[in-house]
């Protein structure tokens, strides 16, 4: 009897308290995340008429996307570009994260800070900086001219898909680096020791132990980079020229010049759903979360 009472009491004491603790975050989630998204979702079923948005319920905006080849072709292209960006960012970011987290003893924090400092600089400034690198009178052309590799400045670096991919990759690298660094740093040294003790040389240790254990970080990095690249419209607008346009630019145009908020919302949601599917697949195949939980 007495025991039962005690259990009941503790349950009573714990339940309301943990509920109260969850309230602020729930309000925050609803207000900042859920409400705007729901509003946009409702918007995507409305209709533009002249310069007004009419309150009727229609699937026309969604149908328009599938009817008009331009939109889904642009989406495929954006996916392709975001994919390339993420892969290149991982190929560049992985050795960096590996070296700094597992090889460097001193200055590890310094290098870490150096890599994430660009995040403190304005997005636009960093984009313009790449214009001064890739442009006709930019650093790259200057270097090529002075080295005698080319006779005239090359215009192939700027205002096309290449410049967009290069700049997006640059933007994405810190976002790939951070989760990779964290995952690699978390690998206990004694697992590396064990691998070597059991007959694995450096390469085999990396292939069989380090790389598989860094996979969760790699997937997180890939997803962050993919999301950043997929939705971006500033970089294509600034550096893309005619050929470098991405899906984000079209969405942006609906809210700007075209003044078609319902269609813009619909385009946005289509991207959202397709991206969500891709990310869930990546999560399922790559992530082994809580691998060190013991």
């Amino acid at each position, binding site marked *: 009897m007495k025991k039962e009472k005690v259990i009941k009491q503790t349950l009573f004491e714990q339940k309301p308290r943990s509920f109260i603790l969850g309230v602020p975050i729930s309000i925050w989630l609803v207000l900042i995340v859920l409400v705007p998204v729901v509003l946009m979702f409702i918007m995507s079923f409305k209709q533009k008429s002249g310069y007004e948005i009419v309150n009727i319920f229609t699937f026309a905006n969604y149908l328009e996307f599938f009817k008009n080849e331009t939109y889904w072709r642009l989406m495929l292209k954006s996916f392709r570009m975001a994919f390339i960006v993420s892969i290149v960012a991982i190929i560049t970011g992985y050795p960096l994260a590996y070296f700094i987290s597992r090889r460097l003893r001193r200055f590890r924090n310094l290098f870490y800070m150096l890599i994430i400092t660009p995040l403190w600089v304005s997005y636009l400034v960093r984009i313009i900086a790449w214009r001064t690198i890739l442009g006709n009178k930019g650093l790259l052309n200057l270097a090529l001219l002075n080295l005698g590799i080319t006779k005239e400045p090359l215009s192939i670096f700027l205002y096309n898909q290449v410049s967009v991919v290069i700049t997006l990759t640059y933007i994405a690298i810190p976002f790939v680096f951070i989760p990779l660094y964290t995952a690699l740093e978390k690998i206990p040294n004694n697992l590396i*020791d064990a691998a*070597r*003790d*059991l*007959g694995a040389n450096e390469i085999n240790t990396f292939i069989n*132990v380090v790389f598989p*254990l860094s996979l969760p970080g790699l997937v997180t990095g890939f997803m962050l980079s993919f999301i950043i690249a997929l939705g971006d419209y500033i970089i294509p607008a600034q550096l893309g020229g005619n050929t470098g346009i991405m899906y984000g630019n079209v969405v942006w145009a609906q809210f700007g010049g075209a003044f078609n908020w319902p269609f813009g919302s619909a385009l946005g949601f289509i991207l959202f759903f397709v991206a969500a599917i891709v990310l869930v697949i990546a999560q399922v195949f790559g992530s082994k979360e809580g*691998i*060190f939980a013991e």
Partner: protein
Amino acid sequence: MQENKLKMDQNNKDNFSVPDMESGGKTQIALINVTKIFQDFTAVNDLTFEIKKGEFFSLLGPSGCGKTTTLRIIAGLENPTAGKILLDGKDVTNIPAYRRNVNTVFQDYAIFPHMNVWDNIYFPLKMKRISRKDAGLRIERVLKLVNMSDYSKRFSHQLSGGQRQRIALARALVNEPEALLLDEPLGALDFKLRIAMQTVLKDIQKDLGITFVYVTHDQTEAITMSDRIAVMRQGVVDQIGTPDEIYNLPATPFVASFIGEMNFIDGVVVDELAEKLKVKIGDFLIICNKNEYNLHKDDEILISVRPEKVFIKPSFSLTNEIKARLSRIVFRGDNYQITTTFNSSELSSVIAAKNLDMTLNLNELVTVSWNAEDARVFPIELKRNIIKYK
């Protein structure tokens, strides 16, 4: 002991042929003048000893004494700053860990968390390019050896500490190494499980006849399991010997204080006899046996004697007798610890509960006695190495 060490030093200075030690058995592992310095800290200082084939050899010492570093040097996970390591007579000093035929059981097991038990044990075989099919039988056998046959599909986080321990053992044994190195393998287990695993380890060692090098800070573990023990202190070996030698003839006050309980008494040599020393402790004169320290008249000395060798009010006659005041009686289950005081020194004695047939009163003046051969004498300078637990 000392003599043996010297002999070995001379033999190993110039050539690698390590002579067998007196009790027979081939040398499996030899360390020759091995030193390891980390930045400004000397972890291992000029270590020379050898481990025989099939032997259960323990490296025993308090934390920070260099025992784990020594083990890692043997494994090849640490490069010595100076000195040589021989495995089966071959110099392996510059051979990396993955090409040495010794395997390690790590302190926290180091089971790969992304592989199941089977794949963990397959790992060392995979590194030898043995196919999964050919490995099956060997893995089955080694799983059976550690009594874990039903767990091959489990992952590390689905196993208890003791089970992980067994898997780590199986993984280290599947390659049939020349020697198995164990780094405090039972340290993380609770008391009862530790005792059970001690038996498992000892049985496996006996069955396979593999050399075990066992690092521990637990003196009971070392004494119950080992064939020989090296007691380490601050990067040097104070004594190498059988558990019996280590316990009954400790080479230094450090060894004496680290293993079991020990009384230490300060004294001064007042006279030298043929094989004996006449020593003054407080107001009393006692007799001690001479030993390798060659102590002489007027030397200040430290005397050590085990509590179980100190008798209170004995009905029989012993070499040394003093009068002391009884200051404390502690019941410890199967025995009593009785503390007596004389001239501001304390002496404790341990008497089996069933043997305590007299009445003892606190503050009573009693006869305390022990035999000369149960005490050891050391120069007083070594007193600073006594381990004090605070």
